[in-house]
């Protein structure tokens, strides 16, 4: 067997890297990381976290055939594989908030056992449905008396500041975070906050003052700043209170303006009546029962109503995608309230997450990420074909390339929503017709079934890739 590749993204950690072999996930622990891991593992703290569902289950590999693949490693761990990977810049406000609270909760529990986290990267957390889970087993090490919380800066940049951007300024963090990959700096956020917002003790302590000190340290002579080894550190109680206070504060954060968004109230006021929604639900149920998919993508999921239908009909897991920030938070609420295996993520389909980071392979792009068994693209294609001027044929080809089976809803020009979209502009879409849609779809797939949903021109098409 050839040398297993390091899964890009884990190469920075000197304590160990993650590898994939035959669909199994292994983590090596280097001689550098071994002592800390051994001590932490011996306390059984990691197992406690696994039991509460807060840490991905793992075991130390004994199989010699695996061990000999990693001659440099002190230990080899095997992890339970996660079904879907997502990144902080794809999370809604509430997903990021839940991730932040989990991180702090783990840090607080760990400190109680004299264990600390060595960093505070948001990429150390993944989601199973709407529930966060910690994935970096090597992020733990024994507590040294009076040590500082070294992850504080990273925690603020990757968790706190993106949340504050929305909570204080009503700006979603997704595009900014995707650009920087490492969150939002205190200095940048400080420049945007209003004067009154900066006066809060919490904002001063975690955003404004650290930024001020950092700038000052950078601008003065380097020799003036005390080295960390010369400082006397902080008491364990102080460390703990930092974590506890942050957790209290973050749990109170909410998006500043929960009411104004174009599609946020869609589930309540849209162009379908109850009967039409039922027709949609029935068609989806037939589709799911026939194709029996494990993983589905719900593209343009809005508040997740039809993901709910699909999951109840037997789909194992749904990843919802939408670009409306309020809609994906509503979908999150639905997923948690009804215990659905639905993970709603931010996606602008005309600009999906690319491969990026180091060597442009550290973070995997939208299409490369996974292969769903089925897709739902309901009340969606007109946003690309009309809204973004993307040729209808390309929209269909792109959707169909995502999964072997799916339902695409065609929204004709006679529909009120499209009428609104065209009301302020010239109608440059002579080829946007039901027959053009059907022809393009049957070029690359078999149309298994169709159902007219509204008299004004919404029809569902069930395709199966040839």
């Amino acid at each position, binding site marked *: 067997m050839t040398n297993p590749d390091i899964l890009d993204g884990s190469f*920075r*950690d*000197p304590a160990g890297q993650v590898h994939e072999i035959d669909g199994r996930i292994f983590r090596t622990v280097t001689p*550098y990381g071994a002592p800390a891991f051994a001590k932490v593992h011996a306390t059984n703290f990691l197992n406690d976290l696994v039991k509460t569902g807060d840490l991905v289950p793992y075991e130390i590999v004994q199989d010699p055939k695996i061990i000999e693949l990693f001659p440099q490693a002190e230990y080899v761990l095997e992890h339970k594989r996660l079904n879907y990977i997502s990144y902080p810049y794809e999370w809604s406000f509430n997903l990021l908030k839940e991730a932040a609270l989990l991180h702090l909760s783990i840090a607080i529990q760990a400190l109680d056992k004299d264990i600390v986290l*060595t*960093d505070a990267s948001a990429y150390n957390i993944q989601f199973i449905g709407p529930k966060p889970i910690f994935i970096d087993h090597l992020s733990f*090490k024994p507590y*040294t*008396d*009076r*040590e*500082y*919380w*070294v*992850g*504080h*800066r*990273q925690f*603020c940049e990757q968790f706190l500041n993106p949340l504050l951007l929305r909570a204080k300024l009503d700006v979603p963090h997704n595009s900014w975070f995707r650009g920087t990959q490492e969150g939002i700096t*205190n200095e940048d956020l400080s420049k945007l906050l209003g004067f009154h917002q900066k006066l809060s003790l919490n904002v001063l*302590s*975690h955003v404004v*003052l*650290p*930024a*001020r*000190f*950092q*700038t000052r*340290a*950078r601008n003065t002579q380097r020799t003036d*700043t005390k080295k*960390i*080894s*010369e*400082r*006397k*550190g*902080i*008491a364990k*109680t*102080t460390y703990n*209170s*930092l974590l506890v206070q942050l957790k209290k504060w973050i749990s109170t954060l909410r998006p500043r303006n929960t009411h104004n968004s174009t599609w946020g109230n869609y589930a309540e006021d849209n162009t379908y009546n109850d009967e039409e929604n039922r027709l949609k639900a029935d068609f989806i149920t037939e589709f799911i029962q026939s194709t029996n998919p494990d993983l589905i993508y719900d593209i343009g999921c809005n508040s997740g109503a039809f993901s709910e239908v699909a999951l109840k009909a037997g789909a194992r897991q749904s990843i919802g995608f939408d670009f409306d920030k309020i809609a994906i938070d509503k979908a999150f609420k639905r997923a948690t309230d009804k215990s659905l295996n639905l993970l709603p993520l931010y996606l602008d389909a005309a600009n999906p997450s690319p491969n990026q980071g180091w060597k442009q392979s550290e973070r995997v792009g939208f299409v490369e990420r996974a292969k769903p068994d089925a897709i739902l693209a309901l009340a969606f294609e007109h946003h690309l074909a009309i809204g973004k001027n993307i040729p209808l044929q390309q929209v269909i080809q792109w959707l169909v390339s995502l999964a072997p089976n799916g339902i695409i809803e065609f929204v004709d020009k006679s529909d009120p929503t499209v009428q609104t979209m065209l009301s302020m502009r010239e109608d440059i879409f002579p080829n946007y017709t039901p027959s053009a849609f059907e022809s393009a779809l049957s070029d690359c797939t078999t149309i298994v079934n169709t159902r007219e949903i509204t008299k004004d021109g919404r029809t569902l098409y069930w395709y199966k890739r040839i």
Partner: protein
Amino acid sequence: MTGMDDESVFVMSYSKAVKLSGFFLVFLNTAQPAHAYLDPGTGSIIIQSIIGGIAAAATFGALYWAKVKAFFNSILHKETTDSSSDSK
């Protein structure tokens, strides 16, 4: 020192111990983990030191306040004992 309950005596000796250990901590060159691969950021370290300092001062202040309260308690206790013996 008469009229002082055990609690206040404990508080007074404890605050002496805190003052002493404070001296020790300043001179103690505690080892910070040298192999952290993450840059904690100067700003973060400074603010943590400040918060730690405020917390220490607050604890010290709370103990000092306990002493003050104990002192006033002892005065009041003496007064009520006097007045109650008067009424007898």
